[in-house]
């Protein structure tokens, strides 16, 4: 076969020397399928590999809905759903998953519960059966619950000493004092200790309803088959979930500097202020500004000034973190204790310059070509495609979003970008958390930081917030 190919190459070479032709980026057809059971599924078929990926999200079924004292329920549930269901105990359930090379998992966020099922086509029926049982007949046996709780609590104790986690959790606790978003996503050692199987069943019944379900699928499956598959998976899942109202909120204590002493040679810095939600009309302008500021790696001002010119850090970045009820623009870096104050001073200057002057025409054009041109790179695997289908539905962007996205980005003007930089990037409002032994740093006095009436101490692992991308 190899020789044959080479022969063709020689014959065709003169013609092909010219250039490799572009192909349309959106060579991807999305089928919108409604199952007999009434579930909407977005599907991208790809029969080149005998595997199927189903991604799903229960909107609202996240840690933000947890009652006080029940912190960590969503996260514990995400683990316990894999610990045996129906007739199978934990070892037999997970044994089947492993033996059939099924990838099955749940992930709890603040705003939602995500799930993922990937299987070889030949094992898809069994995989669907396992997931169905996990969602509708989980066992939550006492011994498994105790073991998983110990694992989570041990992880919480570990991350209490992990500088990056401390910085992220302190940021969120300071910005959202007394609110669900200020609490650690995985709960505390104490709150997890108090959770029982009844709490998991209650959360499952109340929040993982089909009215909150969003499904995306990709891979070796037809629309008819995916409809049957999804009905099989979610058969018996409550049609209606409990009403939850979480109001919009905004970060507080902006402009403060918090220093947490830890015996590490390098200080970790996490910083941020109010950003945009995904449905904000300025979202695309903010995305472009962020790319130029610190989202674009080596194409960003932060990396140029902090890393390339001064060698102050290996990593320095910013990103948009849109949540359902607020948005943040966040950043981070890490510099040895002796020089970290200089890093912070430089990044504040970069922040201020972007706030005052906005990006240049040229920077904006470059950011646009990157953000439009790189979008198809995420169509690299069925998992990524299925996740994209879920996130487009989650954000209500429309089934033609992939075609429209380029225009939404290109339509942003320099004036838009300058206005949004002014709106979002106020250097005086940066909430800054430094973990380490930073030299020459002055922290805001503790009595100037509003604890909102409930300072969750000791704190444990809150997530470093990450955006869901645009």
């Amino acid at each position, binding site marked *: 076969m190899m020789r044959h190919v080479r022969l063709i190459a020689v014959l065709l*070479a003169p013609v092909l020397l010219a250039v490799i032709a572009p192909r349309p980026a959106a060579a991807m057809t999305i089928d919108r399928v409604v199952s007999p059971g009434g579930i909407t599924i977005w599907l991208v078929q790809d029969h080149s590999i005998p595997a199927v990926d189903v991604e799903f999200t229960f909107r609202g079924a996240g840690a933000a809905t947890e009652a006080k004292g029940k912190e960590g329920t969503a996260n514990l549930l995400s683990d316990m759903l894999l610990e045996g269901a129906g007739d199978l105990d934990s070892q037999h359930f997970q044994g089947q998953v492993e033996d059939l090379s099924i990838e099955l998992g749940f992930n709890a966020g603040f705003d939602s519960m995500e799930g993922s099922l990937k299987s070889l086509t030949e094992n898809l029926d069994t995989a669907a059966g396992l997931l169905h049982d996990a969602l509708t007949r989980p066992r939550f046996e006492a011994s498994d619950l105790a073991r998983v709780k110990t694992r989570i609590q041990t992880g919480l104790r570990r991350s209490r000493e992990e500088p990056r986690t401390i910085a992220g959790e302190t940021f969120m606790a300071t910005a959202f004092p007394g609110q669900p978003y200020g609490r650690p996503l995985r709960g505390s050692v104490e709150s997890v200790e108090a959770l029982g199987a009844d709490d998991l069943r209650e959360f499952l019944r109340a929040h993982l309803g089909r009215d909150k379900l969003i499904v995306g699928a990709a891979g070796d499956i037809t629309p008819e088959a995916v409809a049957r598959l999804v009905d099989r998976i979610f058969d018996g899942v409550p049609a209606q979930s409990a009403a939850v109202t979480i109001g919009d909120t905004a970060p507080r204590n902006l402009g403060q500097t918090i220093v947490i002493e830890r015996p590490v040679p390098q200080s970790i810095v996490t910083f941020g202020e109010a950003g945009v939600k995904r449905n904000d009309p300025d979202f695309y302008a903010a995305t472009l500004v962020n790319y130029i500021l610190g989202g674009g790696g080596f194409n960003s001002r932060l990396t140029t000034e902090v890393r390339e010119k001064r060698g102050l850090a290996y*990593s320095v970045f910013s990103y948009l973190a849109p949540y359902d009820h607020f948005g943040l623009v966040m950043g981070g870096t890490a510099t040895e204790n002796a020089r970290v104050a200089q890093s912070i001073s430089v990044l504040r200057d970069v922040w201020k310059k972007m706030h005052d002057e906005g990006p240049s025409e040229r920077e904006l054009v470059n950011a646009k070509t990157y953000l439009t041109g790189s979008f198809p790179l995420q169509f690299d695997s069925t998992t990524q495609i299925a996740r994209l289908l879920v996130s487009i539905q989650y954000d209500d962007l429309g089934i033609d979003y992939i075609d429209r996205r380029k225009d939404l980005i290109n339509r942003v003007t320099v004036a838009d970008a300058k206005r949004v930089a002014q709106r979002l990037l106020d250097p005086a409002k940066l909430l800054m958390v430094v973990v380490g032994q930073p030299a020459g740093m002055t922290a805001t006095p503790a009595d100037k930081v509003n604890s909102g009436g409930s300072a969750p101490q000791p704190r444990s692992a809150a997530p470093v917030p990450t955006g869901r991308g645009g």
Partner: protein
Amino acid sequence: MKLSRRSLRCCWQVIVLAAAVMCAALGAPASAQVFNPETMTLPNGLLVVAIPNHRAPIVTQMVWYKIGAGDEVPGKSGIAHFLEHLMFKGTKAVPPGEFSKIVGRNGGRDNAFTSYDYTAYFQSIARDRLELVMKLESDRMRNLVLNDASVLPERDVILEERRSRIDNNPDARLTEQMQAALYLNSPYHRPIIGWEHEMAQLTTQDAIAWYRRYYTPNNAILIVAGDITMAELKPLAEKYYGPIPSRPVPPRVRPTEPPPEVARRVELKDQRVRQTVWTRLYLAPSYVAGDKQYADALQVLAEIFGGGVTSRLHKSVVIDRPLATSAGAFYDPDAVGLTQFGISAALRPDAKLEDLEGAMNAEIKRLVDGGVTADEVQRAERRLRADVVYARDSLQAGARAIGEAITTGTSIEQVETWPSRIAAVTPEEVTAAARAVFRDEGSVTGVLLPKPSS
């Protein structure tokens, strides 16, 4: 372990053990006659590989150099990784820092990584921009310009990288000490990123010498994966890489280990440690070094012993006895020199370290004495072979598997025949491999311990 030029900021949650278990899965060359690569060699010695995958109109170009931290001379640790950073510092045609900007302006992403046996550079981009990134990558294969103005700030960057990756992490510091203890003579006893005091002394001249010595087409592999055929790739490879002259490259040296005499133990106590973690490394053959006939069987062994929550180790110390919160095994056969087989477990707060260590040792003894069963082997092999299908689902997996294979001294054929070889591994071979590797005198035990703060 690989180092990447850019930091990954999403990894905050990954614990040592999860990483270890994942290594077992990824370490196996994820392949089967599935990547179906096409190859050719240019007259200057550059091996060109096309891995067609037409699901999206995108390509990944990777250039792998057969050079890594294992090739460094004593006193210059970290130079391979340092040069990886410096490859972005410009040429006569491309000003410093512009490489990534040009790629970005064209909607592409780029990065690079360094390991003990290779250094690799890659860009992912729309297929009609392939020519552009080939032009850029081939330019820096021979035209890199380095001077103190660009090199010295970058040296501060790699020192910060070391602080981020190693010095701020007790588990990474322990791993570094364990590597140093395991290898008595192999260059693998030095950290890929380098020892801090030597990194701080690296000079522009060191970097230029390294570049001139090893960055040449006959020491490299060009791999393009994605929406491409060899018919399309060949003329571009000839145009951009063809004119680069080859230079003789010194043979790779991996001094062998003396016969190990004694088991070693390394303990690291740190007041930031909140969970005791027990790890053991055994010297092990790779595909090309030591008793290489065991390399396939050891992959099956890693799967049986510690490849998931129904594996022997997990079942024994996590499920049946409440000793650990997690346990696993890892093995990577892709290495020019002797590699390692590792097992690890994280102690439950209410359990005793000596009980956990006793249980881990008992599992090793049970394995060595009693061997593995046909059923266990069959289950493990089925799982490993299914990974192949998933690997085909990613654009980069094939390029990575093939690049890693060739730079560590095996072949594309060996990658492509991996599923059939794994399927042919017998229980007797797995047992024999376990007996060959699990020898106390060839091991290092590492314990990460909390230190009560004063």
